[in-house]
């Protein structure tokens, strides 16, 4: 039995039947198929969160100039207050609400008699105290159940106060994970924000999509992009803002970092505004270099291409010595990596560069296309759960639609290996024989730790300490353990330094008490003296 079978074997027949499709071993030459984005099994300790977490917590919260009101009991707003590390900085023209948590703190009477009145009052109070340009309302489980019409409240308040007010029905029970919430947030931003600004288009302009500026990743990426000469119109949504997002439609190219959480906007902007998107990866040197070179080829300006090469050479030179040093400490180590819906893929090449082999990988809430690539999309059937998450379609906007590329240029790009609107998923970078687990759970984590004994395990806070207590170093790749940035060239060096630290910190050698392997009684064996 291989390790996959050993683990599945311990499940009851019902659970086995479900999980065997989610846990696979990558086989050479096979079309590896995995089941994903389906319901978690009740009672199984999944690491997944909910729709609200994906909508409010992930996509919307980083928009710094938006006052987000959580409509519901206090918990949901409280847990998403300041806990995700999407760094943001305001200035004299931009309010920054990152340090604030707004909630309607619903009480029993609101549940019984409806919460719309309280929500209206809360909006009024936010407007009076803070005078924001934009308010977003996010609903939690009971709101949907009692039937509060948050969209009507938002529309009425928008009229009344003359500011943008959006509502998101992202009740926790919708969909099967955070992923449904990403989609709902994408829909709202596309429908009501993107395209409402009137900024002049800029040269070499891009949007950075699915970059949440965790630990300053977005800032590091932007630094490199600006060095080359790009104009970043908006970042979705790390250190982003309502003000910038309105003008996103003026960009020439969309760069998609986190495919899972933002691909809907990329697709819709292509349809509506004709803006092409490329899948980028600013984590790890191979990813950064390919991304920057793809971008330069897209714009096809010799100066830009030359500057790209110069910046790559310069940035790489800066970290070369450090990277080489850490590689000597990390070469030959093995890793397990379980994060989100795109991040696992992003780190595989960086780990390879450092000589670390990934033996176990997976996503918490990825879809099949995040594993197998977008070619699989037409064959994914929508089920009852995915149908509960709204999917919107957009029309071409004749006024703002642009086609930058001629068919000839498109073909040239294709031949040069720059594939627009394409993502090949985790499979494109994963080694054969790697065990891949979708929606991994506590039991599987524990068992795989015993069977595969990775030298380091990348995941999140809920399993971090169980992993460490098992004797395996663990780093959180959602929050970077309060460090970072890990994006860009400098970020790669930070990452190398941090995982070296995690593996080599001296306390690991002291875990076992000396008396555990030293006899208590001292003396000599009878008769040998």
């Amino acid at each position, binding site marked *: 039995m291989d390790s996959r079978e050993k683990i599945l074997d311990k499940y009851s027949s019902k659970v086995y039947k479900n999980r065997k499709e989610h846990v696979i071993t990558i086989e050479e030459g096979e079309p590896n198929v995995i089941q994903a984005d389906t319901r978690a099994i009740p009672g199984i300790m999944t690491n997944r969160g909910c729709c609200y977490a994906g909508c409010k917590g992930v996509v919307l919260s980083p928009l710094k100039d938006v006052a987000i009101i959580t409509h519901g009991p206090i918990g949901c707003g409280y847990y998403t207050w300041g806990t995700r590390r999407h760094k943001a900085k305001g200035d004299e023209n931009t309010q920054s609400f990152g340090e604030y948590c707004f*909630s309607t703190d619903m009480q029993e009477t609101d549940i019984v008699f409806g919460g719309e009145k309280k929500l209206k009052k809360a909006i009024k109070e936010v407007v009076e105290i803070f005078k924001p340009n934009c308010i977003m309302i996010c609903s939690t489980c009971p709101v949907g159940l009692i039937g509060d019409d948050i969209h009507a409240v938002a529309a009425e308040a928008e009229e009344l106060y003359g500011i943008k007010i959006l509502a998101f029905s992202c009740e926790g029970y919708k969909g099967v994970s955070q992923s449904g919430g990403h989609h709902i947030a994408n829909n709202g931003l596309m429908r009501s924000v993107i395209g409402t600004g009137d900024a002049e288009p800029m040269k070499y302009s891009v949007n950075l999509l699915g970059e949440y500026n965790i630990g300053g990743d977005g800032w590091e990426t932007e630094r490199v992009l600006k060095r080359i000469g790009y104009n970043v119109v908006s970042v979705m949504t790390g250190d982003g803002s309502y003000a910038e997002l309105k003008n996103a439609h003026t960009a020439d190219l969309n760069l998609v970092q986190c495919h899972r959480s933002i691909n809907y906007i990329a697709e819709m902007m292509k349809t509506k505004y004709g803006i092409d998107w490329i899948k980028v990866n600013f984590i790890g040197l191979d990813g950064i270099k390919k991304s920057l070179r793809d971008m330069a080829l897209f714009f096809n300006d010799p100066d830009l291409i030359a500057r790209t090469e110069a910046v790559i050479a310069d940035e790489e030179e800066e970290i070369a010595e450090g990277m080489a040093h850490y590689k000597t400490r990390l070469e030959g180590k093995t890793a397990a990596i379980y994060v989100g819906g795109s991040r696992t893929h992003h780190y595989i090449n960086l780990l390879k560069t450092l000589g670390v082999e990934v033996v176990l990988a997976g996503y918490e809430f990825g879809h099949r296309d995040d594993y197998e690539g977008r070619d699989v999309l037409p064959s994914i059937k929508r089920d009852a759960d995915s149908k509960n998450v709204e999917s919107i379609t957009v029309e071409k906007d004749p006024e703002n639609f642009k086609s930058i590329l001629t068919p000839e240029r498109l073909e040239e790009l294709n031949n040069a290996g720059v594939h627009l609107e394409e993502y090949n998923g985790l499979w494109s970078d994963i080694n054969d024989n790697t065990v891949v687990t979708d929606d991994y759970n506590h039991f599987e984590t524990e068992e795989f730790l015993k069977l595969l004994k990775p030298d380091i395990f990348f995941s999140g806070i809920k399993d971090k300490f169980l992993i460490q207590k098992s004797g395996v170093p663990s780093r959180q790749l959602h929050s970077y353990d309060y460090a970072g940035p890990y994006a860009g060239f400098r970020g790669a060096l930070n990452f190398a330094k941090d995982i070296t630290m995690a593996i080599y910190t001296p306390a690991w050698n002291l875990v076992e008490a000396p008396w555990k392997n030293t006899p208590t009684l001292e003396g000599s064996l009878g008769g040998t003296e």
Partner: protein
Amino acid sequence: MLDLTPKEQSERSALRINPIKTCQPVGAMYAALGVHACMPHSHGSQGCCSFHRMFLTRHFKDPAIASSSSFTEGASVFGGGANLKTAIKNIFDIYDPEIIAVHTTCLSETIGDDLVGYINDAKIPEGKIVVHTNTPSYVGSHITGYYNMITGFIKYLAEATGEKNNKLALFPGFVNPGDMREMKRLMTIMGVEYIMLPDTSGVMDAPMTGSYNMYPKGGTTVSDIKDLGNCELTLALGELTSEFPANFLEKKCKVPYKTLPLPIGVENTDAFVMALNHFSKNEVPYEIEEERGQLMDILLDSHQYTYNKSVAIYGDPDTVLGMAEITMEMGMIPKYLVTGTPGKIFEEKAKILFDKFGIEGCVAKSAADLFELHQWIKNDSVDLLIGGTHGKYVARAEDIPLVRVGFPIIDRYVHSYLPIVGYKGAIRLAELILNALMDRQDRDCEDEDMEMVM
């Protein structure tokens, strides 16, 4: 930092800004983690369970296990019975706890799931137990959820067999494992046999050994919870947290109870020790007298650095009241006492404390938030802040030192291992408070005023 907070206060009746409370289920989860080999189970959407596990893990820096009924839209419409049934089977199959402690969420409460019925219908393996409590998130706070879960255990398990066990039942309040260890130590020194529920020591501060154990050694055992019904007396520490279950145990099993403040500070610890003394009839041993004497020595030696210093304290109601007591014993003025947990009794108790020390001009408020506290401070500042992590923004914005005490502390280490209760805990608090104030003096003074000896 918090630049958008205006100094001028305005009336708010609907909007909560920067809360000092969270919802019931996380309290229930914490209480259930204090029962040995127990799987806390969240009956709702899996996001609640994830948030709560995340939050407890961030505070304790230790794994917080819990499972979820993983509701989808279907379950929200048709009820969560099938989900709970599946969950119970899977939890016993895969994680093999001795007991599952189910708590509800605003989702399952709003649709009116009948937990008693579901649990009666569930297939529970021989010798295993499932209990539940109702924890609607739209009532009370995490403190309410904590005592509801304790009460749930008692409701299902405690029984009076007619034979007394000569033990003291202790409800420790919403405190850290380090505090629970200290309470146990004091009871042991006093020769008191006890049953403490919950007991998260040895669970949420379990040692690193190199091998992970899902159910560490700590936690109140099921047999001890059953035996609670045979105790002579209950001590409910922290009236606003522990009286509810104590009252329930009295009703169910005729165990009389006495409530005391959390043993934070000199007099509160005195009251605890006296109660133990009264219960055991054993004299207070020198060991405890020595600790108390050391504490008094420290408070007197250092009084000039704390006397008349003003402090704002925020957090859970019983913790804030306890901290108010010790700060007043140190000669400080607890200018603002705020808790997010609703309940006017907090304000009444604070008033009694102010009167006891003859202090005027202090304000206490329940169902308050940090935004309001910040506005008060903007209008009339304090020398020190005491509370959990979320006050760090206010501390930075107003350049006030912060001593981290209570729940949650998600930005520091070690705090959950060490007590704030008992004389030892008071010594620790004195050190934390003195260091904060004296470091501040060292930082702020002119070069020529820098004191080598203090």
